[in-house]
């Protein structure tokens, strides 16, 4: 607290850090404050995850060691992975750096949805707390961060450990998805005038591709987790071989998420390096267009390589070879980046600041990680190396040597802007060199251990295997790594209290964030910049005399700046979700209460007067589309992957049920055709509702809105009838593969229709209360987009599940 006061007092003028007290921080919707909250939380979990790793290393320092029991070891390695990925790297990259820097880099005053931003943080905190509560209530998750079925079934993992894992990850995934929508819309829509895509800073490019990956990959994990949840709580058998299912389905769903996930972790670090290296080389980023395209290409290709995590599963040599080729292909755009960074430094004037050292370290360490990755892409080699310490080495070289080095680089680079003070460079250099020694000493020997046959995820190993020496080296080096982190903490502690004031531009920077004070005022820019070239701030300082490439300022006077109003609903909603999670591992009633709280918070959220950013999006809507409309489209994108995963599961398990009844015996196509027709007609009414409100016919619009809702209810009634009818015909949820995939798919669709009906009724109610005039037609349009999407999903489901069954013979 005293430190906080010291920072706040030290700021020369009011900044985003001052004012509001504790309540101000709890209700903040300022992207910079939210970034600081994320940063502090993630830093705490970095220490937790690091201690877990050190404990593992102590156990492995000697053969047949008894420092940790087998069960404890398994919990620790599971939580180490889960924590580092979901509670450290992703929150730092998205929650801290994207949140803080992207609006500044693009010349905006905040993100597109400030309250959603706050909600992302509080839900993240709720998920983190929930996951770690497991240590105190029955034991932490212990089936690995990747949780392979069918070890994760209730039969083989009877405790609550994995219940905490499944529910915790679902909560965390929600938070990440919201961040994805928020940052995606921000980058597309809120760039300063003149900042085209090809003029944006490279970090913004990498974050744009990253959020696309978030939106289109997380839903696969969500579906995998939901199916596991159903197996563990509701007696289904999505991953159990005896009923015709396959544990390999989990692997496909998990890695369809998991591989884009590692690029979600790598790309932001690449973006940071692409900011830091040019600044400290005093040269622009080499080959900007190729960097941008290669980033997009990596994002695209990352969806085609997931099988390389499954070479040992036995997909067959054709599938294995295809994934080998795609995995090698993705090395090409990555290689382009490595050479580009070197070319940027070449011929420059390099300043060996700590930020620069860590970025250079990233280039080297990620090269090693990428090269060992190429070995893994060669299937026969992978069959020796996978599930051994070789792959542990590989993953740490790319995730620590890549992501964490990038995060350290970003920390030293943006720290002055965030806090107004410089970190000590001598301590920084000590941190860097200790990291180099500790990191390489820990993980390089693991290549040898893997090559010498040491499997991974083992709590002990026998003497006489030749593994003692390198394990000891790795353990000692891991403690050096721990010391390096301590050095960083000392640096932070000392400079927060009496570090040198940074000033606006301590690094002779190139981008817009260095044009404003450190720390920035709450509204970032008094007058928004108008950009004419890349590296606009550099152009201002050193550009040619002609103004062609120099940025100017918008003529808008300062009094149009509305400070964002804080909101209670994010923290309340997050508390509701936490309560629901607690209910999942205790009693169902608590789940209901939790969701109830969450729903009330959503309603409050919806009717609250929005923060300024959401009102003024029209002024700088670079894509020409309102923020909220872009947001709903982003959401629809992720929902498409959600339903695609459920539909794929249905199709994969089609015809594999071991007992009946099957679809042919039980589906009634004529009846469902009627309810399908009703749902399609509801879309027509929706169109009429939107047309009505756009021309100001409020009464008409209300009628059509209620009509749409009514037809939706008819559809739902049809579904309810269908489900109860099937149940009486002997098709319960757990009966066979058909029943569980059918009920899950159609059930989730029905839930989406239900939410749509509630939304429609709420709009109608708002209209009755006179709160939905013609100029608020966007609210109806958003609901319309959602409603039409849900309809289209039903058309796909109806075709694949009902019609194909009626047409095909078997």
């Amino acid at each position, binding site marked *: 607290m005293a430190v906080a006061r010291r920072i706040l007092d030290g700021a020369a003028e009011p900044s985003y850090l001052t004012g509001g007290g504790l309540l101000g921080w709890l209700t903040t919707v300022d992207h910079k404050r939210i970034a600081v909250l994320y940063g502090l939380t993630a830093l705490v979990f970095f220490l937790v995850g690091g201690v877990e790793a050190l404990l593992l290393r102590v156990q492995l320092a000697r053969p047949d060691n008894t420092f940790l029991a*087998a*069960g404890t070891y398994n919990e620790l390695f599971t939580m180490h992975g889960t924590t580092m990925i979901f509670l450290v790297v992703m929150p730092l990259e998205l929650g801290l750096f994207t949140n803080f820097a992207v609006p500044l880099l693009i010349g905006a005053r905040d993100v597109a949805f400030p309250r959603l931003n706050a909600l992302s943080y509080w839900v993240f905190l709720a998920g983190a707390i929930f996951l770690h509560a497991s240590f105190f209530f029955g034991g932490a998750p212990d089936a690995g961060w990747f949780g*392979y*079925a*069918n*070890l994760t079934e209730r039969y*083989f993992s009877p405790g609550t450990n994995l219940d905490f894992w499944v529910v915790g990850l679902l909560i965390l995934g929600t938070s990440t998805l919201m961040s994805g929508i928020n940052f995606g819309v921000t980058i597309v829509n809120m760039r300063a005038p003149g900042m085209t895509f090809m003029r944006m800073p490279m970090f913004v490019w990498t974050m744009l591709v990253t959020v696309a990956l978030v939106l289109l990959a997380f839903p696969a994990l969500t579906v995998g987790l939901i199916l596991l949840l159903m197996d563990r709580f509701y007696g289904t058998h999505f991953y159990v*071989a*005896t009923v015709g299912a396959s*544990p*390999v389905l989990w692997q496909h769903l998990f890695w369809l998420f998991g591989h884009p996930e590692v690029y979600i972790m790598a790309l932001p670090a690449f973006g940071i390096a692409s900011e830091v290296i040019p600044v400290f080389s005093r*040269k622009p980023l*080499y080959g900007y267009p*190729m960097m941008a395209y290669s980033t997009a290409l990596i994002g695209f290709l990352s969806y085609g390589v997931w099988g390389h995590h499954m070479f*040992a*599963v*036995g997909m067959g*040599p054709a599938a*294995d*070879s295809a994934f*080998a080729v795609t995995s*090698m292909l993705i090395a*090409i755009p990555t*290689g*382009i980046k490595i*050479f580009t960074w*070197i*070319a*940027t*430094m070449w*011929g*420059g*004037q*390099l*300043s*060996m600041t700590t930020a620069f050292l860590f970025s250079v370290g990233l*280039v*080297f360490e990620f*090269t090693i990680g990428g*090269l060992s990755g*190429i*070995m893994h*892409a*060669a*299937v*026969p*080699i992978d*069959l*020796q190396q*996978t*599930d051994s310490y070789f792959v542990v080495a590989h993953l740490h070289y790319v995730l620590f040597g890549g992501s964490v080095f990038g995060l350290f680089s970003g920390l030293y680079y943006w720290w002055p802007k965030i806090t107004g003070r410089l970190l000590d460079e001598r301590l920084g250099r000590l941190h860097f060199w200790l990291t180099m020694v500790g990191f390489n000493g820990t993980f390089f020997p693991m290549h040898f251990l893997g*090559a*010498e*046959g040491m*499997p991974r*995820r*083992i709590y002990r190993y*026998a003497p006489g*295997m030749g593994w003692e*020496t390198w394990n000891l080296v790795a353990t000692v080096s891991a403690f050096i790594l721990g010391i390096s982190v301590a050095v960083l903490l000392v640096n932070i502690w000392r400079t927060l209290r009496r570090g040198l004031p940074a000033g606006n531009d301590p690094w002779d920077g190139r981008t817009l964030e260095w044009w404003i004070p450190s720390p920035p005022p709450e509204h970032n820019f008094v007058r928004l910049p108008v950009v004419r070239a890349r590296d606009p701030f550099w152009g201002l300082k050193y550009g040619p005399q002609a103004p062609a490439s120099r940025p100017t300022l918008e003529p808008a006077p300062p009094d149009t700046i509305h400070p964002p109003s804080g909101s209670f609903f994010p923290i309340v909603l997050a508390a509701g979700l936490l309560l629901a999670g607690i209910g999942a591992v205790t009693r169902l009633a608590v789940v209901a209460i939790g969701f109830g709280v969450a729903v009330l918070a959503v309603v409050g959220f919806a009717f609250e007067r929005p923060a300024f950013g959401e009102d003024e999006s029209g002024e700088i809507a670079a894509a020409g589309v309102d923020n909220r409309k872009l947001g709903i489209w982003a959401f629809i994108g992720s929902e498409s992957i959600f339903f695609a995963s459920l539909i794929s599961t249905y199709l994969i398990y089609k015809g594999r049920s071991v007992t009946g009844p099957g679809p042919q015996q039980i589906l009634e196509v004529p009846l469902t055709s009627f309810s399908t027709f009703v749902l399609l007609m509801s879309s027509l009414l929706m169109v009429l509702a939107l047309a009505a409100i756009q021309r100001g016919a409020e009464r008409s619009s209300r009628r059509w809105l209620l009509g749409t809702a009514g037809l939706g209810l008819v559809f739902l009634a049809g579904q309810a009838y269908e489900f109860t009818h099937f149940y009486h015909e002997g098709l319960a949820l757990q009966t066979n593969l058909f029943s569980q995939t059918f009920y899950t798919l159609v059930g989730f669709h029905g839930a989406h229709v239900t939410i749509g009906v509630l939304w429609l009724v709420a709009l109608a109610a708002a209209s009755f209360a006179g709160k939905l005039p013609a100029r608020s037609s966007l609210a109806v349009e958003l609901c319309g987009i959602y409603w039409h999407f849900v309809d289209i999903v039903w058309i796909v489901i109806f075709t694949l599940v009902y019609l194909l069954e009626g047409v095909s013979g078997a």
Partner: protein
Amino acid sequence: MSRGIVVALATVLGGCRTAEPPMTTFAPKSDFAEWTYSLYLQVIGWDSFILVLVGLLLVLALFRYSTRALGKSETPPVSRERVELEVAWTVGPALVLIAIAIPTIRTTFRAAPAVAPAGALHVDVTAHQWWWEVRYPDLAVLTANEIHLPVGRPVRLELRSADVIHSFWVPQLGGKRDVVPGHPNAITLVPRVVGMYLGQCAEFCGLSHANMRFRVFVDSPDDFQAWVAHQATPGVMPVASEDLVTAGARLYATSPCVTCHAINGVSSGRLGPDLTHFATRTTFAGGTLANTPENLGAWLRDPESEKPGAQMPRLGLPPAQVSELVAYLGSLR
């Protein structure tokens, strides 16, 4: 010669040991392992070249272009962008990757034939938490945690799981294959060198994943025949007398052991390993303990302490009875 350099480098980096680690992947003893090792040498060659190139460029750039201080007053350097360079570092790596992809695909297909080669020996391996059941379907042999193979003859190992996903890995005989319930997998290889090779489960499978080990003995054809012949015999029945072995036999036959274990002519439990020829095996308890009377006694007294989560319960027997069982099990040749 380049192969020799890489091998030398690998040895040096591997810690200058004269004795090779028993589970090393660098000592191929089967055709499958040899193809893999040869591919490995090619790829590590390319990888080393690229790493040295990138490292040198980085070091060169750092030393040549670093400045002492942030020279704000100096004119910033000009960036000269050359398309040829960008083309080179796109096409170059692509060519290297093609050079790697071709042998990769070839070896992948070669190592995974759809059907067993003619004359192959069939071995059915069933993975359990946390031990390996081994059955020779054509030879009426059933054992656990130990596989015997004749040198020079193709073998097809069929892998099945009784519970969760495991992975079968004998590094010196080649890469691993997951053992997936409901998804039988197979490994086909020809062992080339007589010897004993260590294997271990390589897919996290629960509490005692680390304790799920096994051994593969590649025998000369004669030794293999002798082993098969012995394993196929009905097993030793103790001659009636008052010694420990007979007492142990009587104890076994009337204890809960029979629910889980099978001994030919005595019991037919299928949950744990078959014990008919227990004394011919070099290890037990998932390959983690050498088959000695001391270890056996410790195991019988407290299985959980050796293998956390072991399904074998503590029998709570007085020491005298433990000795009887140890003697009996030691007689099961």
